């Protein structure tokens, strides 16, 4: 039995600016993974951190520059190497045929792949994409281009509806209930959505974040409510 999952080098094939602080990194490889799974990206000599797969063929990520590691990633250009370990984690699983996807910040990244998967099966896919301000919205055009209905919210009203994703979700849960709600984003947003979906009696799948070390369910550093977000999660189900 060989369970080795060691970092392997991938070459950057394309880099695209998505918004003021987020860039898409496209690599020259594919990976056998499902929406919601993540990989550990390693820059030898610097650090190794978890990122959701934006696409599997070719392997792609949408990464916001928020600190030392992500800023270093943003300095890379086509032809440079990044080492990948994974994929890890439990993916989203489509349930029913009417899906409501909710993404906050770079949390939209794993949802695009999920939207495509649902649409390819002929399901109805509605998406709510939120950010603080217009410049931080992510993948709105790509999600529309994939064929999903997209509602946009910004806290300052600079694009779409002024307010939070939960405002739109509240209306849709009341007026036109989806079969299942899927979300990825900041913990506060996920906690609010969990309560909303729970009250509405709609099953939910939420992708949470935690500091990760091993990524393989050994070290305990990603604990969340008695679950390991790297192995049991990052997607946790309820409702």
């Amino acid at each position: 039995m060989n369970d080795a999952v060691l970092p392997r080098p991938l070459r950057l094939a394309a880099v695209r600016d998505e918004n003021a602080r987020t860039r898409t990194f496209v690599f020259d490889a594919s990976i056998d993974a499902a929406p919601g799974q993540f990989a550990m990206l390693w820059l030898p000599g610097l650090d190794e951190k978890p990122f959701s797969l934006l696409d599997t063929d070719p392997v792609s990520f949408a990464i916001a520059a928020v600190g030392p590691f992500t800023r270093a990633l943003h300095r890379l250009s086509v032809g440079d190497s990044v080492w990948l370990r994974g994929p890890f984690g439990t993916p989203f699983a489509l349930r029913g045929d009417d899906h409501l996807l909710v993404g906050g910040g770079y949390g939209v990244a794993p949802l695009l792949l999920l939207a495509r998967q649902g649409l390819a099966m002929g399901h109805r896919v509605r998406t709510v994409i939120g950010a603080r301000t217009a410049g931080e919205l992510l993948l709105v055009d790509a999600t529309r281009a994939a064929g999903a209905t997209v509602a946009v919210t910004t806290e300052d009203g600079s694009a779409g509806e002024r307010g939070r994703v939960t405002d739109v979700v509240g209306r849709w849960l009341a007026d036109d209930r989806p079969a299942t709600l899927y979300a990825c984003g900041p913990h506060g947003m996920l906690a609010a959505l969990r309560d909303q979906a729970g009250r509405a009696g709609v099953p939910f799948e939420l992708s949470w974040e935690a500091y990760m070390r091993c990524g393989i369910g050994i070290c305990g550093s990603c604990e969340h409510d008695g679950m390991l977000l790297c192995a049991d999660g990052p997607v946790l189900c309820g409702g």
Partner: protein
Amino acid sequence: MAEMTHEARDADRNDDLTVDLTVDLCGVRLPNPLVLASGILGTHASLMHRVAIAGAGAITAKSCGPAPRGGHVNPSCVAWDNGLLNAIGLANPGAVDEVALLVATKALLAPLGVPLIASIFADDVDGFARVAATIAAAEPDLLEVNISCPNVASEFGEPFAASCASASAVTAAVRAAVDMPIIVKLAPNVADLARIAQAVVDAGADAICAINTMPGLLVDAESGRPVLANRTGGISGAALKPVALYAVDLIARAVRVPIIGTGGVRSAVDVVEMLSAGAAAVGIGSAVYGAGPDVFGLVARDLVRWLAERNLTLADVRGRTQRAPSWPEAATPAPVPQADHALVANPQPVLR
């Protein structure tokens, strides 16, 4: 039977088999000999509770030291062909916060009848005594003294487990600081393991855990760099099993205290091998990779079946490696165990 599917056979596997798996470890009752090894899921009460529910016979918490530590930069733990390599770097909340963690954990484990083993480290002898005294407030059932982490040498110097003098000094200091039974955790990569085991027992160790990880290096071919940010790490999992069996056998022949045999145990057969080599209980860590916490229940179930099929008890199995009779025809008979012999010379060369 030949016509049965695997599923059907699994379904009626052991439910009517009964074999007593309980173990007495220094006066503490374990419902079975499978102990969660330190550093695996021992960071949160919720996770330790989960491992106990999954079927562990005792839970060892992650090692804690005098002050909070963030641990090493990533990558800090990876899976390679035959096990794991880790240099987590003793990330822990510090002894004061660890007390609250242990109290919460003990409250969850007690109703299950699963004992809690605290684990401590420090960078000097007095530090061990202080951390032990602090942790004693949480009243863990047993206290494990980790003198053998290979991943902090650049900060802490040579592990205390590397010499008789330092290993026994730490053991004596902890012994004087607390009343509960203490387990001293030894390293495999030392010049004279039998003598070190004897030294910690003489200094007051009630039990020995053998072994901690073995130092190792993985190199990424493409970049030429070490895979772990710490450069080196500790080898655990399948690759460690023969080293652990070697250590347990050596220690069992040297001292009389119970041994928690740890290293590469993934199946009931591995458990039987470890008990045969002289262990009283068996640590399981890396096998949680892949199987998850359920590995404890699965191994316990298979162990019951293995013993029942052979009409054996844990006591029958334990120490068989040393008791094994030899053929009268054998040219050089295996050494016959002597009652109460204190020390067996270590076959390794000793460098002085």
